[in-house]
């Protein structure tokens, strides 16, 4: 995975959200803050979640926009936003969100890498528990052979 996809400032380890939509707004807000997307993308992320849950398993959700929302993407980027208190995600307990802004199909490999990481209980635990943003980045960026 290209390490520019996940900037150090896009890793937030201690966020709070009242509910799922609040968590998605927080995730989208980080993508806006780092200049990856325009604010309209956040609405597209909420729309996508209405259409089908982005919960993938192992306490992780991958909020991202609809196809229509791609126009609001300035550059491909990821954000990792952790909610230590947890968020109820349509009945699933989510503590880590990997928010995705991707225009092409580069995120297929990225998702495949993330899924492989989450299928490994040790690495999944490390993602949920890492205390340093650099550890989170290393975990995600090293999951793909370069």
């Amino acid at each position, binding site marked *: 995975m290209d390490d520019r996809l996940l900037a150090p400032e896009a890793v937030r380890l201690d966020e709070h959200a009242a509910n799922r939509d609040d968590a998605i707004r927080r995730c989208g807000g980080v993508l806006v803050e780092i200049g990856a997307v325009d604010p309209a993308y956040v609405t597209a992320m909420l*729309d*996508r979640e*209405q*259409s*089908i*849950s*982005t919960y*993938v*398993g*192992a306490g992780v959700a*991958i909020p*991202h926009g*609809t*196809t*229509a929302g791609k126009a609001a993407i300035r550059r491909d980027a990821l954000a990792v936003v952790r909610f230590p208190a947890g968020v109820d995600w349509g009945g699933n307990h989510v503590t880590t969100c990997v928010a*995705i802004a991707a225009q092409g*199909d580069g*995120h*297929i*490999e990225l*998702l*495949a*890498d*993330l*899924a*492989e990481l*989450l*299928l490994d209980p040790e690495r999944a635990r490390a993602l949920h528990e890492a205390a340093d943003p650099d550890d989170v980045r290393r975990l995600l960026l090293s999951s793909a052979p370069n």
Partner: protein
Amino acid sequence: MPTRSVTVGATSGLHARPAALFVAAAAAQSVPVTIRTSDKPPVPARSLLSVLALGAKHGAEVTLEADGPTADAALDALATLLARDLDSDDESPDHG
């Protein structure tokens, strides 16, 4: 054992939303179904993480396999779904 080879029809590949729709349909079948790509071993079709880990892009050939009395019907249903462009249904709540 009955199998079906299908070309992934979703424009952006078997990623988040198309994968979620596929996994939900697989979980609704009465027989367990596996899916594999040409370079990866079969995984349970009802495991979203396993399906995502295949990383199947648009145009990739995947193979479905199932066993049991309703295997053929299950495979036909899932193969039809996979061949569809699940992304073109993007904003339609009917399919979400």
